[in-house]
């Protein structure tokens, strides 16, 4: 499945692991924070509309 990367296999694979890992972490943290902030805003809006 993985192509023969020869003597540089570790070098290439580490580059991919580090980069893709960082990209996934960036997207993941952005989405988690985005959902948390949206839920918090909706909660405050509902509370305010209830209290007039």
């Amino acid at each position, binding site marked *: 499945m993985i*192509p*023969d*990367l*020869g*003597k*540089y*296999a570790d*070098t*290439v694979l*580490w*580059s*991919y692991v*580090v*980069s*893709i890992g*960082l*990209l996934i*972490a*960036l*997207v993941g943290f*952005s*989405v988690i*924070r*985005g959902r948390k*902030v*949206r839920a*918090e*805003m909706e909660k*405050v*809006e509902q*509370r*305010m509309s209830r209290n007039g």
Partner: protein
Amino acid sequence: MTIAAKANALWEYANPRKFLATSERVLPFFWIGAGLCLVVGLIWGFFFTPDDYKQGSTVKIIYLHVPAALMAINCWIMMLATSLVWLVRRHHVSALAARAAAPIGIVMTLIALATGAIWGQPMWGTWWAWDPRLTSFLILFLFYLGYVALWEAIEDPDTAADLTSVLCLVGSVFAFLSRYAVNFWNQGLHQGASVMRAGAITGTDTEEKVSNIYFYPLLLCIIGFVLLFIALVFYRTGTEIRARRTKALMARERVNG
């Protein structure tokens, strides 16, 4: 519609509601586009391109290193543009867009530095050298960290936006140096531009260029990184707008008792 009218229509997006509505409509296209381009580009580059005659299989690092480095610089340029809009026109969305983009820039710079070091070790025999391009990239990374720290350190959001905008103007020198350092100082280990150079692509100059066999998947990865950047900026700016609104609502609640 005249050009002036079109330019004026652009300012409508400075309205947070308009920005949120539009970004939510277009975001799925950017997420899907980014995912498709990155998956196809990386699989193509990793599995279906041959080893380079000089660099062996390490050439496959190009599909991550070059797009990340490109976006690290362009992210700062985008922050510069939105910071200028904030300083001149005081549109909050533009200041929040710059704030939202900074962590993306940090990750892109980190990927470029990490893959550069991993690639450099077998090719140059060292993880790091105080080469003009590498050094200016490291300074750009430190500017990104300083920019985020400044936003976090100042409580008043307008003051924070003012000061971070000025920092962004200063840091722009290093964003441009990161791109052109190799042209200014003809020294160091890092090669000159061999991808985004008109002459290199068309083959009209005599310097070595990236072969088309690597260039096409690389182009797809670059498009993927650009689309991912746009999607993340839209999404994160929306988050910043909502966080700001939540703070304002809570302050109003406190005042009203």
